[in-house]
């Protein structure tokens, strides 16, 4: 019984303003900080590409399936995000350690010969941040070196 009620003049004005603003809708990225690297730019990919993030893609289980290189990539490129946090968590689970002074990830290569307060002497593999520092996207390779 509540038949239609004609829109008043002010509703017409409101609708016009709403309609005009619908041509530049806020995007999810408008509510996110700008990224120095990998800025989020929506791009029309073919419809058969997955258009949404995989479910659970922001969980530890998902990150545990990623390769070490991918985890390093996420850690260094996506600073201050949940992805960086999860990548660091998984790296630690896989016995990597982050050295805050050199900002490098280390992993024991063998049992250290000497352990004291200051350091553990032994051989480690580590991820070379210098190479990374250039952050060249093309031709980028991960290098591991033994550090005595």
């Amino acid at each position: 019984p509540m038949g239609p009620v004609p829109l008043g003049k002010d509703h017409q004005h409101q609708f016009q303003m709403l309609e005009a603003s619908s041509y530049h809708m806020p995007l999810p990225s408008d509510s996110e900080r700008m990224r120095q690297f990998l800025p989020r730019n929506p791009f029309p990919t073919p419809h058969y590409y997955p258009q949404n993030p995989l479910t659970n893609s922001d969980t530890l289980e998902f990150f545990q399936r990623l390769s070490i290189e991918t985890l390093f990539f996420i850690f260094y490129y996506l600073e201050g995000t949940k992805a960086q946090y999860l990548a660091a968590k998984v790296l630690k689970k896989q016995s990597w350690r982050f050295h805050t002074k050199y900002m490098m990830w280390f992993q024991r290569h063998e049992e250290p010969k000497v352990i004291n307060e200051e350091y553990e002497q032994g051989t480690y593999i580590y991820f070379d941040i210098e190479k990374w520092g250039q952050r060249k996207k093309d031709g980028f390779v991960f290098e591991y070196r033994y550090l005595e």
Partner: protein
Amino acid sequence: YDDPQGLVEKSEILLREWVRLYATQGSPKDSSKAFSSFIHELNSSGILKNDDVITRFFRICVQCCINQVYQGLQAGPMNLIRSKCYQSVDALVRLVALLIRHIGDSPTPKVNLMNKFLGIVAGILIQEHELQKTDFQQLPFHRMFMMLFYDLNTQDQVFETISMQILTGFSNTLHILNPIKVPGFAYAWLEIIGNRLFIARMLALASEQKCWAMYCQLILDLFRFLFPFLRNAELAKPVATLYRGTLRVLLVILHDFPDFLCDYCYHFLDAIPPNCIQMRNLVLSAFPRNMRLPDPFTANLKFEMLADTAMPPRILSNVGAMIQPASFKKDLDSYLKARGPVTFLSELRTNLQVTNEPGTRYNIPLINALVLYVGSQHIQVIRSRNQTPNMSTIAHTSHMDIFQNLAVDLDTEGRYLFLNALANQLRFPSSHTHYFSLVILYLFAHSNTEDVQEQITRVLLERLVVNRPHPWGLLVTFIELIKNPTYKFWQHEFVHCAPEVEKLFESVARSCM
């Protein structure tokens, strides 16, 4: 604005310098290094001299950022100028956040400075909205509010001490900028109140639900804007987009904060158009997080078996105060107590009517409040006699007189609203759901015309045939109506009035069985 000579130019130069420092000497999260050098420049330029100069400086900087967008739009589409414009906006907002953080030691100057900036942005937004009309650009303002909200809600000891004032400041500003006031900002506005951090701070993290009432106010602003457009049900694309976005936000709230919807349900029901059945069902389907709902299809399910039926739902509004005018409320109370004045019933319809225009004849919030008030009073009276509501204890009482009078005396439109007000009480197990379920079934069983029975059925059915969710109390009531032979439901002609209607009832009955 009578800006002092040279202030505009000086401010623009300072802003450009700060944007450069922000981009080069910091990270998206930390500009403390850049700030420690820039603050001296600000100071030596006299910007921090007094309140008036800071206010002008903020206004000039905000206007700069906004102008950049309009200039940029000549250059290309919004996407291209986003990053350029946002760089300035993010930098300006960061500067404001750092000034708030470092100004004085006590909270007051911090809060004042924040509210000053929010007020300036809001003022310029409203002015731009009026000046630019359909060329108005919502995104830079959206960015300004969103990034300032992020900056002021980082885990920082200083901001933690004023977190309630921050949330209050933003809520008040967004309430001022509600969609009815600035419809060109409506999408950005919903994007802000639907933002995950905003929801988190307002509904999850603010202690003791202190921000729930403010968030309710914002949701009501949204419903009030949508009301006339949803009321007519033909949704033009811009409205459909806003409506769909609203449903998504409400679904997150239903899933994560059902108690919020339970507590403020009565506020929302007054603001949702009566034909907006699914969104109303969504609000009514919320039940307290710690409650376990029995399967409504359980055979021989009886309210009396449920412990929750003893308790009333939480009601945050003062229902009695919503019954106006006071003389009407006085007569109502007197009638409930002593069934007098006798004219009360015959004048009831007049008190509820506001116009003679079909479709807008009645005061819906008043009908909702009257039904809730009379029902609450009735439950109390029954309880005071150590009885529980059932078909005999609710019968032949002044309260039921009122409900039966409304069922008989109102026209189709009025009775539709009255029956909806009753059906709106059918939620999770509570003394109200139990009582109002009885009232609906009692009215069905004792009505002397088939019109009333048909309309009761329509009101229940239209709530059941829409997509899920369906409130628990609605399902239980309808199942009782079609199963219990007392109501002779299947004998009514309207059940067989058309093959598809008959099929519909049978399919609903099958799913209920």
